[in-house]
């Protein structure tokens, strides 16, 4: 297994820049997830690591070796595609054996590797079938099998679960995590699904508009999002945001919104009267107690808990509570926005404090 180093990498198509000066070090055996909305450049970055796209500027190293100008076959990496990209004219066994045959592995070596992978992925009875005769989940497994038989330096995943239905996706997500714990392979995984990113990653790279927005462990991104983009992208239901002004009456910092004021537990390094965006996660809003009164617009019971849509002084809020609250639409309910749960972002959308 090898580390992957990306330094100062950019990608341009003619005059259009899609990736700007990306630097990222993936440690050996690490599971890194690139996450972001579609068009953020995450797949392009992955394809550049694979050698399917040219690098416009910067360097990519796999296991210390500069691979910028190496063709994909010389990089010794495996990739799982969103469409699986199974060879339709080959059986499952041949699909998995293809890379080994190209490497002139002995017949016996191929058989051992395929059987091991098939056992691991539960494909034993399907080896003779063609991909066309498999279900989506089975195809996904074959695509995984094709990647693992070879013991490559690194695995690349390009939205491998996007074509599966929700239940199967959840199942395969766990399978991938299990597989990673077993094989300990360096992996880079691209997804637009923040739940996949949170559950799978050792480290998440949140991307938007061709820039890296934040790199960190899933909980770091969740607890301390570096900017408004990450704050809004990670977490479901999404973080509540509202504008407020910073005030320091009697030197006690507080947030002032036209309809309410909140005292702060810290003093952000900003001038008096500075405009802020304040964020609070739905699960951190306390309902049933507190200084302010919200009006209930909608109640969504999820079984696990309740999502309440509220209006507070013209601002929309979603609150999530594990309790099954007896809320009535149109009624007022006291709510509390605890000071230590508030995320503050300055006028440029960058986290403060």
């Amino acid at each position, binding site marked *: 297994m090898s580390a992957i180093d990306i330094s100062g990498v950019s990608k341009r198509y003619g005059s259009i820049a899609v990736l700007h000066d990306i630097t990222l070090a993936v440690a050996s055996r690490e599971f890194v997830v690139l996450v972001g909305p579609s068009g953020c450049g995450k797949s392009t970055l992955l394809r550049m690591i694979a050698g399917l796209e040219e690098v416009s500027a910067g360097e990519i190293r796999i296991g210390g070796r500069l691979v910028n100008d190496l063709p994909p076959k010389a990089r010794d990496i495996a*990739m799982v595609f969103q469409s699986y990209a199974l060879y339709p004219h080959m059986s499952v066994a041949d699909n998995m054996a293809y*890379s080994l045959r190209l490497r002139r592995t002995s017949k016996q070596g191929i058989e051992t590797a395929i059987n091991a992978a098939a056992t691991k992925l539960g494909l034993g009875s399907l080896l003779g079938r063609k991909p066309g005769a498999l279900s989506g989940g089975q195809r996904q497994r074959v695509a995984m099998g094709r990647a693992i038989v070879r013991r490559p330096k690194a695995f690349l995943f390009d939205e491998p679960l996007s074509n599966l239905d929700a239940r199967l996706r959840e199942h395969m997500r766990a399978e991938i995590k299990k597989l990673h714990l077993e094989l300990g392979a360096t992996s880079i995984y691209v997804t637009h699904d923040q739940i996949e990113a949170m559950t799978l990653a050792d480290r998440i790279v949140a991307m938007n508009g061709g820039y890296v927005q934040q790199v960190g462990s899933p909980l770091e991104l969740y607890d301390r999002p570096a900017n408004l983009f990450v704050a809004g992208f990670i977490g479901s239901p999404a973080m509540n945001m509202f504008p407020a002004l910073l005030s320091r009456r009697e030197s006690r910092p507080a947030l002032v919104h036209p309809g309410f004021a909140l005292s702060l537990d810290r003093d952000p390094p900003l001038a008096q009267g500075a405009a802020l965006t304040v964020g609070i996660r739905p699960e951190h809003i306390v309902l049933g107690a507190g200084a302010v009164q919200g009006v209930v617009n909608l109640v969504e019971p999820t079984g696990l808990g309740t999502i309440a849509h509220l209006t507070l002084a013209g601002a929309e809020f979603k609150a999530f509570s594990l309790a099954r609250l007896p809320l009535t639409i149109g009624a007022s309910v006291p709510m509390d926005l605890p000071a230590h749960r508030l995320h503050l972002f300055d006028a440029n959308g960058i986290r403060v404090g």
Partner: protein
Amino acid sequence: MRRPRRILYWSSHYLLICLYVLFALFPLFWLIKVALTPNDLLYSEGIRLWPSRASLEHFRFVLTHSEFPLFFRNSLIVSSSTAVSVTLISGACGYGLSRFRFRGRPLIVALMLITQMFPLVMLVAPMFRLLAPLGLTNSLTGLVIVYSAFNSPFATFLMQSFFDAIPKELEEAAMIDGATRFGAFRRIILPLTLPGIAATGGFVFSAAWSELLFALMLNSSSRASTFPVGLLSFVSKFSVDFGQMMAAGVLALIPACLFFLLIQRYLVRGLTAGAVKG
């Protein structure tokens, strides 16, 4: 749908298909019928569906006393060579157009399209002037070159659509698996486009097999004539030898039929591949 209505639906369905097949096959039937009718009955029993006496005398004459076997051989050489060369050229071009974005690509596509816009008659004279000094008139090679030139653009568009129907990821997966681009083409893409290649080959073969205009204008000696030109030799100043002409026509069907029989297992898949998401 209720039962009687369904029966009505399907029987009219089959009736229409049968009518069409009858309509399409009737000339073919007439060809065979005339070829088998002895000369003395040809005019007396002209409109009967089947002659009172059938014979193979026209076939015997055509095979032994005419130059038809030579024409036949020439046609076979020209059509097969054209089919092979066009398939290779259009396969390579179609792959290039399907997979790569390069400078001048729109211009090349436009030029290829333009070549398809001229009536062939317009080009006979310039073509003759071009080929004569090169010694390529009265030559099978000349015909192969002309046919290849005229068929390649359309065949290229056809092949491109077949390559377009194959996801790019398959090649990318193969290249990551350790294949070169050419290796990925040969081991993954080629087997998958075989139906398309067969369809293109069949199309070009039959186009070359039945081409008359250039074969007639460029080659005047019978040594280098193809069979459509040969068929014309049964038309003389004062009479047309219908029996022999039809017998030759029937013989000319054989290679085309054999060729399509050979490729037909790919053909249906080929012509519909890419039409729907598979």
